[in-house]
Each structure stands twice: as structure tokens, then as C-alpha cells.
């Protein structure tokens, strides 16, 4: 899970760990790429707007190395343009911030479920 805001990071960890997922937190795109290099995962949850390297850069890089990895994009500025450019770079799902625990769980389930269906 990648977000530059610690509040969002801890929120996500609390929700997803309560659901029984194992969550690794990263504060930036380079950090996430390094983490992914160390160990594979089943879902990438990424913010779009981040300082220096943004979420779109991250999605693009990840998509090249792991074409099948589901990517759930989240954004506090959920305009159609943002969503469209995320999809173009390889995001599979989208969720707008802020969200309730139920909404995030449902979105993660959908992303993983799509993956499992494939």
C-alpha cells in the first residue's frame, strides 16, 4: 500500500489487517518499487498524487514488471480525467478518498476477486 500521508497509510492498514490481509506500507513510489522487488504481492493499493514520483509513474513501472498484478488506485481528487489516466497506465480498479472501512473492503475484494476470476 503506497501513500505519502501517514493517516491514510495507518487507516488502510487497520482496515485491511482487520480483514485478515497482510499489508506492507510504503511512503513513496521508489520505496514501493524496492519493496515489490524484495517480495511479490497480490494487490497494489496506490495513491495518485504524491510528491516527486506520483502514482501514475508507479503504476506504469509496476505494470511493466508485473503485467497481471491487480492495481487499486485511490485519489482524493477523483475527476474522470484522473480515473481515465490511471486506467490508461494500467490500474484495474478505483476508489475515491475519503472512504469508509466497508467501501475499501468492498473495493479490495472486487480487485482481488477480478484477479481470482482471471
Amino acid at each position: 500500500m503506497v501513500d505519502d500521508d501517514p493517516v491514510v497509510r495507518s487507516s488502510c492498514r487497520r482496515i485491511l489487517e482487520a480483514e485478515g490481509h497482510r499489508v506492507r506500507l510504503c511512503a513513496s513510489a521508489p520505496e514501493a518499487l524496492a519493496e515489490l522487488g524484495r517480495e511479490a504481492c497480490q494487490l497494489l493499493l496506490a495513491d495518485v498524487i504524491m510528491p516527486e514520483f506520483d502514482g501514475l509513474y508507479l503504476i506504469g513501472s509496476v505494470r511493466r514488471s508485473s503485467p497481471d498484478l491487480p492495481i487499486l488506485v485511490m485519489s482524493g481528487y477523483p475527476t474522470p480525467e484522473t480515473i481515465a489516466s490511471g486506467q490508461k497506465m494500467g490500474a484495474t480498479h478505483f476508489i475515491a478518498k475519503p472512504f469508509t472501512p466497508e467501501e475499501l473492503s468492498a473495493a479490495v475484494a472486487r480487485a482481488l476477486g477480478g484477479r481470482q476470476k482471471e
Partner: protein
Amino acid sequence: MNPVVYLSTRFRLITSFLAMAILVGGLSLIVGARLLTASVFNEASNRVRQDLNTAQEIYRSAVDRLTLGLTLVALQPEFRQAVGGRDQADIASCVGTLADQLDLDFAGLVSPEGLTLYRSSPRPGDPASVNPAAALALERRASLSGTLALSQAELAAEDPELAARARIPLVPTPMAEPRAESEETAGLTLACALPIYAAPDGASRLLGVLYGGVLLNRNNEIVDRVRDTVFQQEVYRGRQVGTSTLFFKDLRIATNVLDSRGQRAIGTLISAEVKRRVLDQGERWTARAFVVRDWYITAYEPIADVNGRTVGMLYVGVLEAKYADLRRKAMLVFVLITAAGMVLAVALGSLLSSRMLNPMQRLIEASHRVSQGDLSPEIGPYSRSELGVLQRTFQEMLGSLRDRDRHQKAESELRLLQSEKQASVGRLAAGVAHEINNPLTGVLTFTHLLLKRGDLDAEMREDLTTIAGATERVRKIVKGLLDFSRQSKLEPQSTDLNDLVTATIPLVANQALVKGVLFCFDAGSGIPARTIDRNQFQSVLLNIILNALDATQTGGHIDITTRLALTDGRQGIQIAIADTGHGIPAEHLERIFDPFFTTKEVGKGTGLGLSVSQGIVARHGGSIRVQSQVGKGSTFTIWLPLEGEVL
């Protein structure tokens, strides 16, 4: 196609004036010239006729003088004695003295038998040849005096010198009747012959006939006396104004008409026409005639000899140039007056046309300026003619044009202000949304996680629920802000607006049913499909219908009508949504399209709905207007031009 030729009114007016001036001037010029010519030449002819009378008088006085001189000699007793005695010396003395005193060219005495007893000439001719005047007096036994033509022989009998003097070589003259001979040898004379009787009573025995005379050939005394008496040496442009001539038949024998060399024109001939009229028909004749080398106003009188035969003519003439110049000068004055009249006509024409047409010209210029966008052109002072009415009407028309222009400017300024407002709110919203949503995620997450715990007491649960509700509200506000700020691309597609309304009503039908409000949709006919973003336009309709529903009490109704309508002269589609709700107070009417303006209670509306709706309609080239009456209801009217850009 023929090109249309526009003749300026100014040109026509001036031309009319000019034509009138030319007509009047030209007519008076022609009439004036005729009158002038007639009066000048009448005057000149009258003068010449009088002058001819005077000339005749002078000619006659020359005869009288001759007669008187001879009579005086004849009455002398010594002379009669000498004649009676045939005393040659005494006769010679008396007649010679007479000839000397009277400056006679010939004089003599003839015996009753018809022999010339004495001739005053130093070279007397044959005594048997008798002077014709004397012969006539002898025959008639009576005195005679007057004009008499003598042949060369008769002249030579008096004095060979006289015959030589009488000879005049003929000068060929244009317009004259040519003569066969090359010189005139006969001579015209003034002659007198008196019978001398023994006693002065005239009844006694005839002693002889005294005769004497002067040769008129080359004798300019009479003509010069006429000239000096009548014309007093008047000179015009270096020429004698008056001339006089003595003709022997058609030949000038004494004259002061000068030829081209400045010599007296003796030897030239009269023109054929004058010869015929005066010599042949014996008439007095006055006319304009060409004399030797100039035009003259002339008068001719035939001269009869002692036998009553026409033998010559007396002529006087006045140089025509003097009168012609007089006439020419008068004509020049006429022409100048006419020209001045024409100049005046043009000046008057242009002055009048300027006064009449300048306001017109200014109006034309003003309408050009108006067509180029200047709505306050200068049209000059109001004319006092009918044009003034036109000017006033033109000004009034400009006034209404300016009013309309001002109105349109104000409206577009308002629209600009609104879109600027919207844009700045949009930028703010985007920034705020991004910054707020992250912490909001934390609040939502942890509130909901806390609520899931089973060890909470009722009060704590209630407080957490309040936090969750409030946070939801914040989430909605931020979402509204984002929606408002979003200038997402429209996805236009051809849509039947009646269909769209029909498809939209069911979406709110449940809410209306619950509230007890009736929907009426009156779909206009003949409304063409139009390219719009169907989803966004539906959200506009929904927004307005939901607002209407909120405002309307149970039992009220909402009427939706569509029809074609003109706005600002353009054809378009109009959708009117009228409710019977509580209406909007006047002070709110101008602000209802402002972002965040709402009259709904806290938490029920963001105040962005109408603002967003207006933005969408505006991007379709249309407009939303509202009319409202407090307590009776409001009508929102959406108008879309038939053809319009979709931004």
C-alpha cells in the same frame, strides 16, 4: 446586368440652374443681338441717307455757283456790247476773267449761227465744233445748267489738255461688271450755258451763247467738301469714317475712298449689283456694301444730266467697322452678363444644394458609421425642412440601438463575472478537496472502526455516530465542490429533448408521489433533435425538478413544457419547469445561481446545484432564467439555441 448609375442630386440641381441660365442668357443674347444689329444699322443707314442729302446739296450748290457766275457776266452791259460788236478782245477779257475767277475748266462763246466765237483755253480747238451745252442752249433758246458728259472729242475741242486730264485708266475691281475698254476717255462735267440777248429783257435779238463748266474727272473738290462738311474728318482706327464718291457711269472719277496703297481709288468700278439698281433702274439705294477694301454702310443717288439721262452717281458711305465694333462691344457685354449669370447659377446651385443636401450627406455618413459600430455619430444640426423629421427619427433609432447595446453589454458582463466566479471557486475546490480528503479518510476509518467495537456504551456510540454523520456531510460538501469545479469534457450526442424529459420524470416520480405533488408534461411538437451531453443535461433537469419538488407543498403541481422559442432573435428550444411552490424572494433571485448560495437548511444542500446547472447549459450555448412570485411559485426556463457550439 446594367450597372445602376447614380446621378447625385447636387449635380442635377446645378445642371438645372445652369440650363436655365443658358436658356435665358442664350435667348436674350440672340434677341438682343438682333435688336442691336437692327438698331445700329438703322441708325447708321439713317445717318447715311441724311449725309447723301447733304452731299446732293453740295453738288447742287456747285452747279448753282457756276450758273450764278455765268449769269453775272451775262448781265454786264459791256459784255453784251462786246458780244454784239463781236469785239474779240473784250470778249476774251470778260470770259477769261470769269474763267479765272470761277476756276473753270472750259468757257467760251458761241454765235447764234453755231460757230464758236471764243474759247478761254490757250489751245482752242475747231470753231465749228460747238460745246454740247451751248448747242443745247442755242437750240432751246434757253439757259441750262447741270451735269453733262462730254466725249473725248468734245473735250479736246475745248482744250486737248482737258481731254488728257479726263482720261482714267480702269482698275480691275472684284464684284464689278467688267468693261471691254481699258480706259475711260469721256468726261463728266458740270456745265452752264446762257443765251445772251441785245437787251436784258430776253425778247430782243440773240447775240450768242455764253457757256462754261468744270471737268469732274479727277476733281475731288466736291467729294472732299462733302467729307469735310458731313464727317468733319472723323477718323476710326486710322481710317476715314465717312467717304464720298462721284461716279461717271460705274466708274469712280472723284473719290476719297482709298485703295490698298492709300491712294484715291479713282478708276475702280462699282459692284455689279449697285450698278444695276442705281444706274440701270435709277433708284436711290441704301445698303451695306463692300467698297474697294472695306465694308461700308452706303447710300447711292443717281445723277441725271441736263437731258434727264442717268449718267453717274453720288455716293456717301460710313465705315461699317465703327458700328460693327459698337455692336461687338455691346454683344461682349451681353455675353459677359450671360456668363456671369451662368457662374451665378452654378454658385447659387451649389449653395442651395449644399444647404439642402449637407444634412442628407451627413445622415448617409452617419449611417455608414452606425454600420461600422459607432452608435453615436455626429449628424449635425437639425434641418428645418422635412429632412429634420428624418434626422430626429434617425436619432431616436440610434437611441434605442444604444439602449439595446448597453443592455447586451451589461448582460454579457454579468455572464463573464459569473463564469469567473465559477472558475475561481473551481480552483479553490480542487485544492481543498485534495487536502481535506486524506485526513477525512482517517476520520471516517477510525470512527467506523470504533463503532464496530462491542464494548461501547450507548452515549459513546451516539457521539461516534454523530462524528460519522458530520464527516459524511463534509465528504458530501467536498464532493459537491469537486463536481462544481470539474470542467470535464462534454460528450455530445443527438438527443430528442422531449424523450429526455420523459426519461427523467420517472427518476423523481417516487419522491413526488411520497410528497403528493403532481407532474404535468406538455411536450411541444416540431422540436428537432439537438446535440447535447445527455447525462449532464439530465442532471440539470433533475436538479431543477428536485428544487421545484422541495419548494412545492403537498397538493401542488409541477408543469414541464417544451416548445420552440425565440431569444434575442435566435430560434431555440425552451424547457420551462413551473412549480406552485413558495416562490423565491426578490432579494434571492439574483443570487440563486451563485455557488454556495442556498436557502435550504444546513446539510440539505451545498448551494452548488444551480450554479453547476447554469455552467452546463451555458457550455451548450444556452441560458437559464428564473421568474418567481413569492407564495405562487417559480418558473425556471432553460433555453438552447437550435444550432449551437457545444464547448
